[in-house]
């Protein structure tokens, strides 16, 4: 030991190592969502060639509306996934929110006859409350008991679907306000569906959150390395709670908007939403291990999925076959992404 465990004296200072990798053109392309942009372009061009009806104004509006309904819960999923979790309960929150929206309107109409806008507002407050409650319970179970987010939200999904089905016996609740359907469900702002405008506003908010706020950065940090984030003084529990809370509130809002679109409260919607939103998030580059993912790329992925679904509808692919195709698309997209990333050595 005494012979000098290090060779400090004799060693001249070693030249600085070069940065381990230089961002080349391909790298930058991959980082900037190049893969999902390519998927989207291929899907759009191929569909437009195969089926000219795709480019009809009405069809495009339809695609946009479906896109919007997928985008909001996908952003919700992204928030939780970048924070290192999963939210399998998004679909169930959607269902229960739809039931709550319709029920509040139906019951409220007896007390506030003719005051449709008040009813709409009241039901909006109610669903946001329900979403917030679910999100907080999810977060409490995940952080307070160190339970796996996967199991917590899976169980939560079962509980919520059970409540919604028990309450409605699976029968749609009619009697939502007229102006709700015409104003929110079918309404347009500057020629764009209201739902689309709302979803784009939420998208913008998510981008700002991720890029320009401390909270956004903390969500990435918590998802990337919880221990390091905690040691750095990040309030990890609170950050996770906010992520789950926002996610459930966004899912609840989607249920609210969906009710306006359908004109009734339905307990059976959103069954496959957990898979669809995870698909959109992952195709959009969100890491299953957390810490990575951007809202704008998730939006492109959601649009891609909406275009693929629309293409199958237009070409009259059997609806049962469609789920098969979606699964295959997800696998192929992930495999391509992985191969490209592996070449980059990531």
């Amino acid at each position: 030991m005494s012979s000098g465990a290090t060779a400090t004296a004799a060693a001249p200072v070693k030249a600085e190592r070069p940065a381990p990798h230089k961002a080349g053109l391909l790298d930058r392309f991959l980082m900037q969502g190049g893969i999902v942009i390519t998927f989207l372009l291929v899907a759009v061009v191929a569909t437009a060639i195969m089926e000219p009806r795709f480019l009809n104004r009405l069809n495009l509006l339809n695609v946009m509306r479906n896109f919007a309904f997928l985008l909001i819960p996908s952003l919700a999923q992204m928030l939780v996934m970048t924070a290192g979790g999963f939210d399998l309960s998004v679909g169930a929150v959607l269902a229960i929110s739809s039931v709550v929206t319709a029920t509040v309107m139906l019951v409220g109409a007896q007390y506030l006859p003719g005051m449709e806008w008040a009813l709409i507002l009241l039901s909006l407050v109610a669903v946001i409350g329900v979403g917030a409650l679910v999100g907080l319970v999810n977060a409490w179970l995940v952080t307070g008991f160190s339970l796996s987010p996967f199991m917590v939200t899976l169980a939560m999904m079962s509980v919520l679907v059970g409540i919604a089905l028990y309450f409605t016996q699976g029968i749609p609740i009619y009697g939502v306000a007229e102006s709700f359907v015409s104003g929110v469900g079918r309404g347009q702002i500057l020629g764009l569906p209201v739902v689309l405008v709302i979803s784009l506003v939420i998208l913008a908010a998510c981008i700002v959150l991720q890029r320009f706020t401390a909270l956004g950065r903390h969500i990435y940090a918590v998802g990337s390395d919880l221990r390091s984030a905690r040691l750095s003084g990040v309030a990890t529990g609170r950050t996770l709670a906010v992520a789950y809370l926002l996610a459930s509130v966004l899912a609840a809002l989607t249920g609210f908007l969906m009710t306006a679109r359908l004109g009734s409260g339905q307990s059976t919607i959103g069954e496959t939403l957990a898979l669809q939103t995870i698909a959109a998030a992952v195709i959009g580059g969100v890491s299953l291990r957390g810490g990575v993912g951007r809202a704008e790329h998730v939006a492109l992925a959601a649009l891609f999925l909406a275009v693929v679904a629309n293409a199958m509808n237009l070409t009259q692919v059997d609806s049962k076959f469609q789920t098969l195709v979606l699964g295959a698309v997800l696998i192929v997209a992930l495999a391509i992404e992985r191969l490209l990333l592996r070449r980059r050595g990531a």
Partner: protein
Amino acid sequence: MLQVTGITKKFRGVVALDNVDFSLERGEVHALLGENGAGKSTLINLIAGTFPWTEGACSIDGQSISALTPQAAREFGIAAVFQEFSLVPDLTVLENLFLGRERSGGLFLKRREMRQSAIELLDDLGFQVPLDEKVAFLSRAQKQMVEIAKALRTKPKVLILDEPTASLTDGEAEKLFQAMALLKARDVGIIYVSHRMAEIRNLSDRVTVLRGGRKIGTVVTAEVSDEGLIEMMVGRPVEQLFPKIEYKPGPVRLEGANLTSESGSVLDASFVARAGEVVGLAGLVGCGRSELCRAIFGLEPIASGTVKLGDRLVDHPTPAGMLADNVCYFPADRGAEGLALLRSARENATMGSLGLPALSAGPVLKFWREHDIIRDPLERLGLRPMAPERKVSAFSGGNQQKVMLARGLMKPFEVYIFDEPTVGIDVGAKADVYNLIKSLVEGGACVIVSTSELPELINLASRIYVMHEGRIVADLGEGEHSEAQILSHYFGGQA
């Protein structure tokens, strides 16, 4: 400035730290020395507020502190750099530097302001790290620099450094020492934990030695010899850390000819290793010696060249094939590549040997014999505590290493390849590892040791290959390997 008195920490009734006093002055470097499990990390974690103490008192600048959390410690001006970094891999260097302490104006981050102050901070320390690179892409040394810069961002009064040089090359370590001198001049008190005696000697003003959770003593560094420190630490006089090894070179067991790896990390390397000798692989971190070991064992794809075991050519080395051919490899990163941390020591020790007739009959494990079979190797290595059913993660670093090494004792291997066998383990465990190497070599095995610790090369190896940028640049026989002779080849120069 910092005064800790009678501090005690119990974990579920087990005393980890027993009535320890510790003090730190302004501008002082106070080294903490002790074997793993001696309580060093408990002590620094208490001071950093990672967990609360059971009994005792702490004061800083005369202000008494009743309890500490990481946040509170930081507010009192205590910053810590632990061996496990607190960096988030998916964020950039800049984002990590300000993590948890982002500067915001209202709702939004002040990004330009943070960038400016990060540049100033790194310039001040003389660290060159790309600000916009994700931390995941940094070298370990660069991460270390970011971690230190992050700790210093809050202008602490007390800086805790936990084995900061464990993964640095000497040049990088030198930069760290310069930064430490700068901080010392600014009256920052530094608590320095290290296993490296030379560093403690060069850097520290005082040394506190812990053993078994108790404080053995605090001494002024200049007034104590290395032997004295080791004796305080180990509790017995260490006559010789390095055993005297009898070399009886026999036939060539392992031979590499013009080996080049696909990644280019090994270039045209030729070497031989005989039975009954220890072959040392020397060189800077990243010179290719680790990769050479991995290539031999089939973990690094080989582009050209051959590997021979005895007279037999091995076409494509694979780990399973090499094990079957009695070649045993111990990776440098035991946590990531060597051990299943959540499984027991017993399962880890037998992991590579379940196919041996002693342990299995066809597909059925002779699980009732497993315990007896591992007992001997683990005892021979001196596993402490001798609890084979315990999870590996519950052992100290040195004892985790012993669990991994026990694999090499499950059957008589002919070739043993050690990559950094003593990284991050204490002196007592090091001595156990050296004794193991001695007994293997004297038993007729061929041992290859790749290490960045010069004393290990000098005292253990009979021949040394020095590598530089992937090539073997020197082959030093016995009597040719003094520290200066080895170092003269570290940068590719001819002696």
